[in-house]
């Protein structure tokens, strides 16, 4: 079971309190109805699915109920960072490159 730090509660808590919500930093287009088929496909269906560092959304569903973002290594499941929804993608990650 993973330990996840909720950036709102500022606590590391067990995974069962959380729910994964897919890849992060994919903004819903402002004028979504006008999107071309190709653009909508890219927005809605295409995901990076990396082996390594992933930016993803989690929700502290059995806690404060807030959605937030996390940076996780999909190989080790190690969480490098969590941060609040709406904050920009972090440029520097702790412990990467070792």
């Amino acid at each position, binding site marked *: *079971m*993973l*330990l996840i730090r909720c950036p709102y509660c500022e606590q590391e808590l067990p995974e069962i309190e959380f*729910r994964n*919500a897919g890849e992060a930093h994919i*903004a*819903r287009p402002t*004028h*979504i*109805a006008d*999107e071309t*088929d190709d653009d*909508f496909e890219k927005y*809605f269906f295409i995901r990076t699915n990396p082996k390594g560092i992933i930016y993803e*959304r989690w*929700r502290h*569903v059995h806690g404060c*109920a*807030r*959605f937030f973002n996390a940076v996780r290594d999909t*190989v*080790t*499941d*190690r969480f490098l960072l969590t941060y609040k*929804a*709406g904050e920009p993608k972090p440029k520097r990650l702790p412990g990467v490159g070792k």
Partner: protein
Amino acid sequence: MGGETTVNQSFRLANAGRLGRAKTVRFSFDGQDYAGVEGDTLASALIANGVHLVGRSFKYHRPRGILSAGAEEPSALVGIHRDAARKTPNIRATVQELYDGLTAVSQNRWPSLSLDAGAVNDLASPFFAAGFYYKTFMWPKAAWKSLYEPKIREAAGLGVAPDLPDPDHYASRYAHCDLLVVGGGVAGLAAALAAAETGARVILCDEQTELGGALRYERGATVDGQPGWDWAQATAAKLAARDNVRMLTRTTAFGYYAQNFLGLVERVTDHLAEPSPDQPRERLWQVRAKRVVLATGAIERHMVFGDNDRPGIMLASAARTYLNHYGVAVGRQIGVFTANDSAYWTAIDLKKAGVNVAAIVDTRDNPAGPAVEEARALGIELNLGRTVLKTGGRLRVSSMTVQAKKGGPERVIPVDALLMSAGWTPSVHLFSQSRGKVAFNQTTNRFVPGDYAQACVSVGGCNGTDGIGPTVAEAFAAGEKAAKEAGTTVRRLSRPKAETSESWSRGMAGAAPGAGPDSKAKAFVDFQNDVTAKDIRLAVEQGMRSIEHVKRYTTNGMATDQGKTSNLHGLAIAAETLGKTMPEVGLTTFRPPYTPVTFGAIVNHSRGALFEPTRKTPMHEWAVKRGAVFEDVGQWKRAWYFPEAGENMHAAVNRECVTVRKAAGIFDATTLGKIEVVGPDAAAFMELLYTNPWQKLDPGRCRYGVMLREDGFIYDDGVVGRLAEDRFHVTTTTGGAPRVLQHMEDYLQTEFPHLKVWLTSTSEQWAVIAVQGPKSRDIIQPFVEGIDISDEALPHMSVREGKFCGVPTRLFRMSFSGERGFEINVPSDYGPAVIEAIWNEGRKHGACMYGTETMHVLRAEKGYIIVGQDTDGTVTPDDAGLSWAVGKKKTDFVGIRGMNRPDLTAGGRKQLVGLKTKDPNIVLEEGAQIVADPRQAIPMTMIGHVTSSYWSENCGRSIALALVKDGRGKIGETLYVPMPDRTIEVEVAGTVFYDETGARLNG
């Protein structure tokens, strides 16, 4: 157990072992009574009685004995029977502690262990070579289910699963610590000691009954001047007395997961003659450790040579354990076949205990060192540079055939036991599970921990550290370091000083000389899955290149022992055949569990009523008293129907359906999800989350809302009441409540955070009682305060707040039956009193209680869909005939773009229609497939399926809803529903079967 003990313990030595004057314990094996002593394992007690034949092998049914003295045992699997329900299969005799009255049975044999009809598989063994299952049973496919699989399962297999529910219970604990030490041998004890002295919170676990690990058999070791075993027991006692240390014996760390989370299983009662019913059989420990020290030791490998699987052939360290700990000789005339020094110490100990050692056969040409010297000095015959070609015997080994490595004359030496040692494999299982990467050490020719992925460290044998002195030094330092890293202050401690007269050098991996590619010998690599060296070579020759493919093709290392003794041999043989080095080929991945874990321990308390929560409405007990029959809807118990005396379900539902339309019915609708959407931007938010327009909905009015996912498919639906400009009372489907709230929160928090809206789940705050039918208004009228419920003041799809039976209410005028109807929301606690009042009034008007079945029939008569039944996540609003609910002028809502994807707007989609069977008495099966032409060739083209189907007493016929390709264009056409026994003719119809104009809704 009846009868006399007929076999005495003739292989128990008076002056060996530690069990001394322990109490005699009686047990039986395959109906034969035996005696052992307290402290024995089943294996040591059987060997004490001269019993080595304990099972038949998985595939060839070859007689098998006891290979090891520990958890790595692949062969000696037995059933342990306590009573009718407690029949545990596949128990390793080497870890099962003996208790008085223990009953064990052998497995995989018929009619008896010594005469097994299945052994014919051994003669037919050329047919069972690598990949046999894949190649032989490919065709015809249908024969798998009916013929091949049952026969294979019968012929090849292990124990029989118990056929009664498990009567035991299992406990579960979470634990946190600064340091978890896995393994309580000399390394684990030293690490735990160092950390414990600093005050760190330490958990030490070991799979054995007593701590000490290899000190159990290694006689030459001393720690701080004490004999090793005595030091281990004293240290264990010292640790156990400390408040900051938890000692878990009989506890296996079976899984190492992310972030230093480990699964441990503690066997609490399997060693007891009469377990207390209050005790759990096993306890699952889920441990989160700041640091982990792995001190899991090493496992001895067997030699791979011809007929190396006969009973009486075992690991040298096992024989030494049986001698030095249990005081049992594994034979009277013992041969040794080795490629390293450690087996010599076994021979030396046996010789000193007065057991005859026939000869040591060593593949090395010029072994040297204290072990070899001492063996020679004791007069043991040494055959250096030689190999064992094959063995004799049927149910027990009777001889070994020795030959020089390069060939030449063969010499047969009679033996009744043969001990093997090819060297030691570091137990890197947990390290590998922690996602650490193993590295190959060229000097010692073995895989050891390389790069670590988590906060852990390996010490001693599992780290490839040889010798007790370096092991203790390394382990003690690791314990200190781990405690310091976990934040405790380290005092200067005196390290234990350990030494031994014994030394082990490296051995070999792969087939022994004489069992090479030219040999026809049956040289077993994996005893549990019956994989020979030849099978592995064959797999490579047939094109397997990756070790993972070789493993799957041959099943080497895939049995319940997880290849503890076989993996490295298999790799070495594959590498040799491929002409590569072992590290080039690479080790297979280790996965949990380290040893088999019972389902009981994993499932734990989550059984029966505790499997998942049961949700009941506040009116549940009231409905029970009214005689309701319940059905499970997700976690909810819902009243299904209310039978009167003598009624079956069909009769009750027919009566309820007719009564609702003739007079009225009362229904508990509490399980509907309810979400309150509040705030200045509530209407704007509703516009974005539902297809419908909301801005112009007047307060006090309701609308049927359709919610889509972004892909344009229907996600949920429900009636929404606008209570005020800034307040909506949203209802969701019963099962949809949590995910709809999650969906709303997701958009509110991340896509539309600028909207000032607050969402609250109110599902459990309101009890909801539906009163439906022409008399519904008359029934509720006496209870309503402050609301005009006339048709003019409160038309269909309205909502008002006021009082009902004197308590606050949200009163909806709405209908899921097609009749004039009301849904009365009152605070949950008042539900039972309010439904009782309504019921007493309703009876005067001829009303009935009705359940979910009648609710379903009534809504189907009206063509009202149920999301999740008539839709399946691939249905658009248009498919479901709900285009009218999509706001045509809206420029944005969730799903607006997805809904217009080319495939979702193209022709040929399945559309919701009604079906009428040509024979009105036939009720279709839900899920049945629909075809246009029943005479077409099989497989037929299916153009749709039945989603809802009922007998409608109100219509006097069966009714059904279906999703049919281009269905709305087929109304009036005849289609066919092929069933196993007949083909049913149906006519495509509209979705409304009753009151097509909807006049009854308005009363």
